[in-house]
C-alpha cells in the first residue's frame, strides 16, 4: 500500500513542478510584455473579419488596407471625394487615356523604391488575379512612361476610374516580394507588417522610411475576433483599445462605461426591399407604390436600429452628392391605388382579385438579423391594410432570388464602396446584369447608365446619377429603407481613431495613445 502512496505523491509533486514552471514562464512573458508596453507606444484593435493571408489582390484586400500597412493610388476623403495618395496628380488625356504622376521618394517596406514600373506590375497583377478589380477598372493597357509617370488606357470610357482606384483590390505592392517565403509582402503604408498570426492577429509597426507623416504609434496589434459579444467584452476588459462592428444594442451598455467612447458614422450601406417585377402580385406599379407608402421607415429606424442610421430616400447615402434626392410623396391613397389595379376588399378585410386573396412571399436571410425584424414590421403594417405576407427565411438569399419564386425580399448592399455610383447602378439596374435579381427592365435607364459611364465631368456625372435614380424611382423596383450607421467603440485613451463612412482606413498614422 505504501508504494501506491509514494507513487501518487511523486506524480503530484511532478505535476506541481510543471504547473509552477509554466506559471513562471507565463509571468516572465507578462513582465517582459509590460516593460515593452511601458517603453513603446502601442495599441490593440479588434476587427471582426480575419484575412486568410496577406495577398492584397484577393478577397482579403479590405483587411490589409484596414491594417494601415497598404496604400492605393487614390484615397477617398471623409466626403468620399478622390484625393491624391500614391498618385500625386492625374489628368485625362482623352476619353480612355489617363496620365498619373506618382509620388516621389516612396519606398516599399523591403526598401525598394516605388516607381511607375512597380506600380504597373502591381496593377496588372491585381487585374489578372481578381475579376472584380478587372470589372471596376476596365483597363486595356498600363504603361510606365517615366519613373514617376504612369499611363492607363481603358477598354471603354470609364468615368469612375479615379474613384475605383481607391478600391483596396488595387493596393500597390512590390510584386517581387511575393516570391520570398521568408518575409511578408512589401507595401508602402505608414505601418509595416511585423507578424501575421493566422486567425488570430496581425501586428504592424511604424515604418521609419515612410514617405509621408510617420505613424505616431510604435506598434499596433489587430486582433481578429469574430464573435460580437467577445469583441465587446475584450474592449470592456481592456484587452483591446478599440473595436469595430459594434451591435447597436450594446451602445447603451458602452455609454455607461466612462472609459469607453462610442463612435458612429453613416455607412454607405442600404437596407432595402426588393420587388420581383415578374411576380403576378408586383408586376403592377400600383401595388409596389402601395407597399412602398406603407413602410414606416422612421419608426423602423428608431425602434429596430435604435436611431442608428438615416432614413433612405434612394439607394445611395445622403452624404454622397449623388445621394441627395428629394423624397417622392405618393398622393393617392392605398385604397385608391389598389382599386385602380382591380383589387377589392373581401369580408375578412383582405384584398382580393379574380377570387384570389393577396398573399405574398417575403424573403429574408439570417446573416443580417435586423433585416428579419424589419420584414416583420412591414408584414404587420401590410396586414393592417389587408395584405397578407408570409416571411420565409433563406440561408442563401442570392441563390434563392435567382432560382426560386418570390414576391418581396429584404436585401442589404454596400452601394457606393468607392464613392462612385457607377458600379452599383450598372450591376443592379441594367436590364441584362446578373445582379439585377428582381428583373427590373428599362431601356431608358440602360441608356442613361451608358451615358453616365461616358461622362467624365464630375458635376455632369452627379447630375446624371441623380436623374437615373429619379427615373428608377418612378418604377419603384425597390423600396429603400435605411442607411444604417457603422458603430465603433474605443477606449478614451486612444486618440485619432475616426468613424468614417468608408470602411477602408481603420488604422492610420495619426492614431495615438495617451
Amino acid at each position, binding site marked *: 500500500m505504501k508504494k501506491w502512496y509514494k507513487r501518487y505523491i511523486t506524480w503530484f509533486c511532478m505535476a506541481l513542478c510543471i504547473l509552477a514552471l509554466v506559471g513562471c514562464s507565463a509571468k516572465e512573458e507578462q513582465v517582459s510584455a509590460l516593460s515593452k508596453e511601458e517603453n513603446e507606444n502601442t495599441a490593440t484593435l479588434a476587427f471582426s473579419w480575419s484575412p486568410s493571408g496577406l495577398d492584397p489582390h484577393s478577397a482579403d484586400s479590405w483587411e490589409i488596407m484596414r491594417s494601415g500597412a497598404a496604400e492605393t493610388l487614390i484615397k477617398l476623403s471623409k466626403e468620399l471625394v478622390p484625393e491624391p495618395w500614391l498618385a500625386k496628380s492625374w489628368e485625362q488625356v482623352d476619353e480612355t487615356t489617363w496620365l498619373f504622376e506618382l509620388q516621389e521618394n516612396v519606398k516599399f517596406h523591403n526598401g525598394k523604391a516605388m516607381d511607375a514600373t512597380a506600380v504597373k506590375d502591381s496593377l496588372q497583377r491585381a487585374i489578372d488575379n481578381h475579376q472584380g478589380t478587372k470589372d471596376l477598372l476596365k483597363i486595356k493597357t498600363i504603361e510606365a512612361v517615366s519613373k514617376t509617370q504612369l499611363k492607363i488606357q481603358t477598354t471603354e470610357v470609364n468615368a469612375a476610374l479615379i474613384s475605383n482606384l481607391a478600391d483596396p483590390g488595387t493596393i500597390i505592392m512590390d510584386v517581387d516580394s511575393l516570391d520570398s517565403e521568408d518575409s511578408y509582402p512589401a507595401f508602402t503604408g505608414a505601418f509595416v507588417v511585423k507578424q501575421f498570426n493566422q486567425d488570430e*492577429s496581425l501586428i504592424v509597426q511604424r515604418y521609419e522610411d515612410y514617405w509621408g507623416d510617420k505613424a505616431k504609434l510604435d506598434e499596433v496589434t489587430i486582433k481578429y*475576433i469574430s*464573435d460580437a459579444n*467577445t469583441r465587446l467584452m475584450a474592449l470592456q476588459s481592456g*484587452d483591446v483599445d478599440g473595436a469595430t462592428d459594434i451591435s447597436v444594442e450594446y451602445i447603451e451598455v458602452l455609454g455607461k462605461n466612462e472609459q469607453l467612447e462610442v463612435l458612429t458614422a453613416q455607412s454607405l450601406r442600404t437596407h432595402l426591399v426588393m420587388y420581383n417585377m415578374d411576380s403576378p402580385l408586383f408586376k403592377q406599379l400600383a401595388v409596389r407604390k402601395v407597399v412602398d407608402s406603407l413602410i414606416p421607415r422612421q419608426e423602423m429606424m428608431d425602434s429596430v436600429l435604435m436611431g442608428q442610421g438615416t432614413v433612405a430616400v434612394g439607394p445611395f447615402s445622403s452624404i454622397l452628392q449623388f445621394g441627395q434626392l428629394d423624397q417622392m410623396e405618393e398622393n393617392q391613397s392605398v385604397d385608391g391605388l389598389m382599386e385602380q389595379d382591380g383589387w377589392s376588399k373581401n369580408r375578412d378585410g383582405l384584398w382580393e382579385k379574380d377570387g384570389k386573396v393577396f398573399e405574398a412571399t417575403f424573403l429574408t436571410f439570417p446573416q443580417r438579423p435586423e433585416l428579419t425584424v424589419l420584414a416583420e414590421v412591414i408584414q404587420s403594417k401590410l396586414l393592417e391594410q389587408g395584405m397578407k405576407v408570409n416571411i420565409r427565411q433563406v440561408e442563401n438569399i442570392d*441563390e434563392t432570388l435567382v432560382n426560386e419564386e418570390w414576391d418581396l425580399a429584404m436585401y*442589404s448592399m454596400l452601394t457606393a464602396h468607392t464613392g462612385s455610383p457607377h458600379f452599383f447602378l450598372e*450591376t443592379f439596374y441594367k436590364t441584362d446584369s*446578373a445582379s439585377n435579381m428582381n428583373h427590373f427592365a428599362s431601356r431608358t435607364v440602360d441608356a442613361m447608365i451608358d451615358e453616365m459611364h461616358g461622362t467624365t465631368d464630375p458635376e455632369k456625372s452627379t447630375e446624371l446619377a441623380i436623374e437615373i435614380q429619379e427615373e428608377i424611382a418612378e418604377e419603384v423596383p425597390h423600396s429603400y429603407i435605411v442607411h444604417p450607421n457603422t458603430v465603433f467603440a474605443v477606449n478614451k485613451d486612444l486618440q485619432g481613431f475616426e468613424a468614417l463612412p468608408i470602411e477602408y482606413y481603420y488604422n492610420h498614422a495619426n492614431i495615438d495613445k495617451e
Partner: protein
Amino acid sequence: MLKFLLERLLQLVLVVFCVATLTFILVRISPGDPATIMLKANEVPASSEAIHALRSELGLTNSISGQYIEWLQQIFTGEWGESFVSQKPVINELFVRLPATLELALAGLAIMLAVTFVMGISTAVYENGLADKIGRVLALLGSAIPTFWLGFLCIYLFSVSLGWLPSIGRGSFENLILPATTLGLGLGTVYARVLRAHMLELLQQPFVKASRARGLSKKRILVFQILKQALLPIVTMVGTSFAFMLGGSIIVESIFSWPGLGQYVIESINMRDYPVIQGYVVFAAILFVGIHMLVDFIYLLIDPRLRV
C-alpha cells in the same frame, strides 16, 4: 493482436470512404455558392463575369461526378485539395491549426479529469453527505448550462469584472485557463456522477465485503480497489470527449477567439469553402476512429478478462 489491428484499419478505410461520400453530397446540396459568397464578402455587388470566372477557377463548373472522383482520389492519395479562400493545401491548413486545438483539448481534458476524479471520489466516499449533495447540484448545472453561456460568464467574471485573466487569444498560460475551464468543467461534473455511480455499484460486490471483513476502511477500498475497476466506463467517455475536443471545440474556440480547428471550420462553412469542410470532416472521422481504437486498446490493458 494483429487481427485486431487489421480489422480496425479496414474499418477506418470504410468509415473514411462513407464519411467522404456523405460529406461531399451534403456540402453540394446545402445552399450557397462559394464564388458568390467570396465575391460578396464585403457586400459589394459582383458582376456575372466575376462570379463565372471564379466558379470556373474553383473547379465548380466541372461535373458533380468529376468533382466527386477527384475528391476521392485526393482523399486516398493524401492530397486533400486546396482551400478556395486561401489557395493553400487543405491538409496544411488543418495541421497549422491543430497544435492550438490540441493544446486546448489537452488542457480541457486535464480539467475534466481533475473535476471527474476529485468530485467522483469525494461524492462516493461521502455518499449522501454534503459533498455528494453539492456534487449533484454541480452535475445538474454542468449538464444544463450551455457551453457558450458558461464561456461568456467566465469572460465577464474573470476578465471584465475582476480583470484577472485575458478574455481572448492564445499565447500564455493565462490565455488557456478560461477556454479550458469552459471546455472541461461541464463534462467533468457529469462524468463525476458516472464515476460515483460505478464506484457505489462495485461496493456491493463480494470482494468488498471480504476486504471490509479483513478490516480495511471504506475509503481505502474505494480509492485503491474500486477506483481501478470503475475506470472502464470513464475511459470510453474520456476517449469520446477527447476526440470531440480534438475535432475542434467549435463554440469555445469561437467565443475565446482561439485560433484552432473549430474557429477555422466555422469560417470555412460561412464561406462555403468546400475542400476545407470536406477535409475537416474526414480529418475528424479519422480522429474519432483512431481514438476509439486507442480506447479499445486501453480496455485490453485495464481489464485482462477482455484479452481472452
